[in-house]
């Protein structure tokens, strides 16, 4: 079916159509700009992530350089040497008595998140002790 529509004010209609078309084009341009912004932001977030990882490494280095850590290292060395000597004794015993299958300790994988949570808890405990 064909309709004939009487337009009272063709100028206004033309203007409305043009304005709607203009808005569509402007929205398209804005969308392109928005995507550029989004890419820029995502890029910056990746860079920030890398910065934080680097910061974590430097902080660990600093922690190693500070006295408490040095003391811990010394203690660690001592306990490790003790462990080694006790291990030697144990391995000799184990050779004599073979272990049963499936009774070993489960293999726990420590994730980065676990490590962060552990460190955070340790720091919070220390702060609580000081206050």
């Amino acid at each position: 079916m064909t309709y004939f529509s009487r337009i009272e004010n063709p100028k206004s209609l033309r203007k409305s159509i043009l304005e709607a078309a203009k808005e569509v084009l402007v929205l398209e341009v804005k969308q392109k700009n928005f995507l550029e912004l989004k890419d820029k932001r995502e890029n910056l977030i990746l860079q920030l992530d890398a910065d934080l990882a680097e910061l974590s490494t430097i902080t660990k280095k600093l922690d190693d350089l500070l006295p408490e850590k040095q003391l811990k290292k010394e203690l660690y060395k001592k306990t490790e040497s003790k462990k080694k000597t006790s291990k030697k004794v144990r391995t000799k015993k184990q050779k004599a008595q073979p272990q049963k299958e499936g009774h070993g300790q489960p293999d726990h994988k420590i994730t980065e998140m676990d490590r962060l949570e552990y460190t955070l808890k340790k720091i919070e405990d220390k702060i609580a002790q000081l206050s």
Partner: protein
Amino acid sequence: MEAPIYIKINEFDNVMKTLKEVKDKTAQAREKLEAIKKIAQQEDMAVREWEERMNKMDHNLDEIHSFLNSKTR
């Protein structure tokens, strides 16, 4: 009152250097964070502008619709 303590730092220069590294890296990270915040604000503004323009477009379409519908034969 707590008594002061003295701690021995073996590699003092190294500690100072590392501290500076931490400070510099933190400043860099802060700069990036500020840039991200700025972009996020721009994005918010863009979304608001989209909304306004879409409303305007809706209005235009309503107008066109009424123009075409008013005197249909």
